């Protein structure tokens, strides 16, 4: 199924490119501050591009990052910063960072933009523990968060929220534990062919998956992504300028965000009130994305699907049109998402098994694949989808290997 639609013009199509990628080691305890990690990743991305800190005039970030654009510029010694932006919180950020960078470059506000994410997600701020919740008395919610409807009940984490969604998918479509396991196993297989992945050297069988302890029914430990320390950064500039730089450019073919049909106020928890709890903003994002990109899901060589949980992958494969609504479980069980399948996903191991850099390692991995530099390279990869966190809204990018 190809949805090529040449009538739809997207002014940004292939006009900007990722020209540098950088990452730190991915660990369970970096022993360093997040600014130090962000700085290392950014310097590596600049070196990869053959650019210097003097070239940096724009920085964009995820709103959850502790590091601000101006602090990163200060640490880098980037004295020419003239553009910065913040996407707001969550895993939805990295793909929209590509949109911010594209807008900055095409509007002439910046020529060389760094997008980054840096977190000590294991040694400092564990999202799986509900963030940095104290143990004393606490009054929660208000100020537009709507957390007062959820946290006092004990609904505190993304894992519990996605568990509630998973049960609906099981009730409505018959999705099984083994189907969830197929997602975890595909990611683990890829990590075992990616030396820097945290779970490299740790093969996992379906029995291993099923034997992992329940965290929040019906989700087990291995339905959850890793918690890890590390940073990733990429450098974006115009495609025209990219041709003169060190590495083969990977163009940003299209970017799109999208809201769910039944959007609710608040962040993640209010998904429980959506009429259809398993319907994502990714569907609207995908419909726009494919039109803007002039290609469809079947044209993708690889896909980096935001995998905070196994169910997230299944829901997004449905939302972005790789399979029909409710068919995600059978689709992943068929082997389609494995390295040898029709749409290999998370080819570095993803959040499940490479590292949790809040969606930014997915961007880096897409660029590696399209340069032909990945540890587990998919032969002839030309187009990669990257998706952002599934709640509360959707975000997505198509990257293309430059002609």
């Amino acid at each position, binding site marked *: 199924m190809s949805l090529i639609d040449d009538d739809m013009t997207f002014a940004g199509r292939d006009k900007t490119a990722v020209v540098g990628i950088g990452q730190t080691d991915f660990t369970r305890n970096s022993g360093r501050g997040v600014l130090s990690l962000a700085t290392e990743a950014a310097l590596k991305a600049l070196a990869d591009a053959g650019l210097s800190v003097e070239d940096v005039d724009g920085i964009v970030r995820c709103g959850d990052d502790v590091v601000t654009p101006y602090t990163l510029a200060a640490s880098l010694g980037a004295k020419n910063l003239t553009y910065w932006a913040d996407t707001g919180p969550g895993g939805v950020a990295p793909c929209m960072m590509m949109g911010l960078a594209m807008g900055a470059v095409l509007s002439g506000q910046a020529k060389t933009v760094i997008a980054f994410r840096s977190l000590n997600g294991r040694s400092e701020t564990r999202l*799986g*523990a*509900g963030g940095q*919740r104290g*143990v*004393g*008395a*606490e*009054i*929660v*919610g*208000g*100020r*537009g968060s*709507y957390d*007062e*409807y*959820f*946290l*006092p*009940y*004990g*609904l*505190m*984490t993304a894992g*519990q929220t996605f*568990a*509630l*969604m998973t*049960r*609906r998918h099981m*009730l409505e479509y018959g999705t099984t534990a083994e189907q969830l396991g197929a997602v975890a196993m595909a990611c683990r297989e890829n990590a075992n062919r990616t030396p820097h992945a945290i779970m490299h050297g740790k093969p996992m069988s379906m029995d291993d998956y099923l034997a992992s*302890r*329940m*965290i*929040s*029914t*019906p*989700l087990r430990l291995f339905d959850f992504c890793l918690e890890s320390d590390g940073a990733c950064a990429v450098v974006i500039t115009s495609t025209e300028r990219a041709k003169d730089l060190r590495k083969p450019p990977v163009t940003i073919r299209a970017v799109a965000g999208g809201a769910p049909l039944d*959007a*609710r*106020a*608040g962040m993640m928890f*209010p998904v*429980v*009130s959506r*009429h259809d*709890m398993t319907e994502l903003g990714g569907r609207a994002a995908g419909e726009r994305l494919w039109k803007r990109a002039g290609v469809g899901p079947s044209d993708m060589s690889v896909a980096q699907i935001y995998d905070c949980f196994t169910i997230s992958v299944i829901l997004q494969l449905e939302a972005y049109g790789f399979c029909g609504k409710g068919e995600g479980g059978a689709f992943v069980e068929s082997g389609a998402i494995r390295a040898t399948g029709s749409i290999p996903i998370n080819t570095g191991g993803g959040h499940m098994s490479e590292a949790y850099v809040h969606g930014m390692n997915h961007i880096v991995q897409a660029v590696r694949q399209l340069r032909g530099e990945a540890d587990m390279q998919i032969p002839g990869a030309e187009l990669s989808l990257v998706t952002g966190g599934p709640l509360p809204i959707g975000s997505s990018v198509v990257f293309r290997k430059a002609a």
Partner: protein
Amino acid sequence: MSYSIQPNTEDRETGPFFAAAAEGRLVFRVCNDCGHATQPPTEHCPWCGGWNTEWRQAQGRGRLHTWTTVTHQIHPDYPTPFTLVVVELDETPDVRLMGRLDGAPVLTAGQPMEVWFEKLNDDVALPQWRPLGRPV
């Protein structure tokens, strides 16, 4: 049950929900023009674009939509296992609310649920849900 995590009851958009709960009443935000409800509550109605919304009292019955039994403890005041339930109000499919049951009860999608009010202190109560006719 003693929770150290208590809701902010003074938010301008949601405060009336907790004020009603403290009086043993369950309310939700509904639009008088189109009949839809909003949850979380908003003064503006996104369904029809109007502003004619108000708090309306619910009967306190609903249906179980989904649930999860939490077995990995992350907060000392919320000992596991406990079960989070999502209940859809009988009045409208637009509103689903949270509840919490002790342990890992056997539950069925769509089963009838009823509200009760858990006093957190003299001024604050949480609407909670239990299977209809089953004691707390």
